[in-house]
């Protein structure tokens, strides 16, 4: 294995974008997992498929329409869920299938599947442009700042909504903010792992990190580290062996989960 690959500028862009997305997905995903919203990322990703198809049909950059469609549909489904008292998992199923259905219909209008659709379904991190990289870094920075500023409010309302309300936290607004941030995060991450595997980045590193039995900040740091490790190693391995980065990244994070479960079963994860 040579280090030559580290000198390519497309590899720099892929690694920088990949690391930013790994950090972003793991922190936003941690709040979703703890709110029992693990599949929400998946549902937003599928609804973004409708947005991507719309962009391709209209001749607009597909990620812009994906941002619009995903965020709007995520907010609408949350409103419907609260208003009509639909359970979380059922509302996710509705969102997920309506995005794919709309996407399929729009695609058949525009004359069938193209190579572009496949790159959105399965990711294309080695093809990110300089503009994409800048956008990914800017959005990651913005969301991390929002989370840092509202850290206590977001954590408290994730822990227990009722008590957060009693202490004066505007819980409903915080809930919508999280949905909004999840929408942005999902669409931003499409370039890394594609529509079909996004929930893996949201869920697997967090489920793994939670098993280490630490406090909130440590859990978040463990999760981000695992996520960054899987993404970086996944991108390099996939390039060297000419296999798909998305699949490799997700299998690596599943590997870390498996190792953690092994360590835990062996009783090596001591409690404090």
């Amino acid at each position, binding site marked *: 294995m040579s280090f030559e690959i580290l000198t390519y500028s497309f590899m720099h862009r892929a690694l920088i974008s990949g690391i930013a997305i790994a950090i972003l997905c793991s922190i936003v995903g941690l709040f979703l997992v703890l709110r029992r919203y693990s599949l929400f990322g998946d549902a937003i990703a599928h609804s973004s498929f409708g947005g991507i198809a719309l962009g391709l049909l209209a001749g607009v950059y597909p990620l812009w329409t994906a941002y619009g469609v995903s965020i709007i549909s995520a907010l609408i489904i949350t409103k419907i869920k609260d208003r009509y008292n639909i359970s979380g998992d059922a509302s996710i199923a509705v969102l997920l299938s309506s995005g794919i259905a709309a996407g399929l219909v729009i695609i058949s209008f525009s004359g069938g599947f193209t190579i572009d659709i496949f790159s959105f379904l399965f990711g294309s991190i080695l093809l990110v442009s300089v503009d994409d990289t800048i956008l990914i870094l800017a959005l990651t920075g913005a969301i991390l700042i929002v989370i840092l500023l509202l850290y206590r409010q977001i954590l408290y309302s994730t822990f227990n909504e009722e*008590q957060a*309300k*009693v202490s004066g936290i505007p819980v409903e607004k915080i809930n919508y903010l999280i949905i909004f941030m999840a929408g942005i995060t999902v669409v931003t991450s499409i370039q890394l792992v594609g529509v079909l595997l996004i929930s893996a980045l949201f869920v697997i590193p967090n489920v793994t*990190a*939670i098993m280490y039995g*630490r406090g*909130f900040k440590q859990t978040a740091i463990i999760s981000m580290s695992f996520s960054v490790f899987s993404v970086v190693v996944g991108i390099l391995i996939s390039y060297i062996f000419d296999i798909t980065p998305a699949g490799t990244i997700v299998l690596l994070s599943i590997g870390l989960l498996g190792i953690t479960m092994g360590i835990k079963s062996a009783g090596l994860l001591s409690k*404090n």
Partner: protein
Amino acid sequence: MLNAVEITNLTVKYPDVKALDDVSFVVKEGDFLGIIGPNGAGKSTLFDSMLGLNTKYDGTIKFFEEDIKKSKKYHKEIGYVPQKPVFEKNFPATVSDVVRMGLRNESDENKIDEILQQLWIHELRKRRIGELSGGQLQRVFIAKALVNNPKILILDEPVTGIDQQSIELFYSILRELNSKQKITIIWSSHDLDAVNQLANHVACLNRTLFFHGESEKFFSDDDLVKQYSEASMQEHMHHH
């Protein structure tokens, strides 16, 4: 003495029943009020309304002379300890993390250690919240409620999962908070003996308020105690 809490003509209607019917009472600053009443008497509805969780009521609720529907300032005067703290068992939060959630001014980090020491749970500060016993959890939630120095502490007494030793400790903590730190306490309890020992005022609730006054007066009136006990006993039988 200021009125810490002033409830006037509080009525809460559910579609088929009045959960609270024209309830009025005043809690003075520094009072220790025990609220007793059978299951389904409306204690939870009363607390939900006072805490801003139920806003569909007639009448007014004031904290320190301010109507809670008009001013949100009251949130910072209140510490609330729920009957059964609900959270995800695997939630990755330590005892310190949970107490910190209650802390409004994040620069007051020392306050967390101080309050944990005061409640005898400082050695648990790095433990995950899901690993604690019922009594320890209760103290963690009291710590979270107290970390902002509230003027009023509202507690819904847990009825299960707490051992006798923890209950004794809990009572001594309440006594100290009220007598030494002058915190006004509103406490819903099923334990008449404990209310008799700790509270200086009693409110008996059964949809309407059928007694509110000094606890000495309540406990020295055999008829009242008997009436309460019978109502409570009937409810108890009814529920089993």
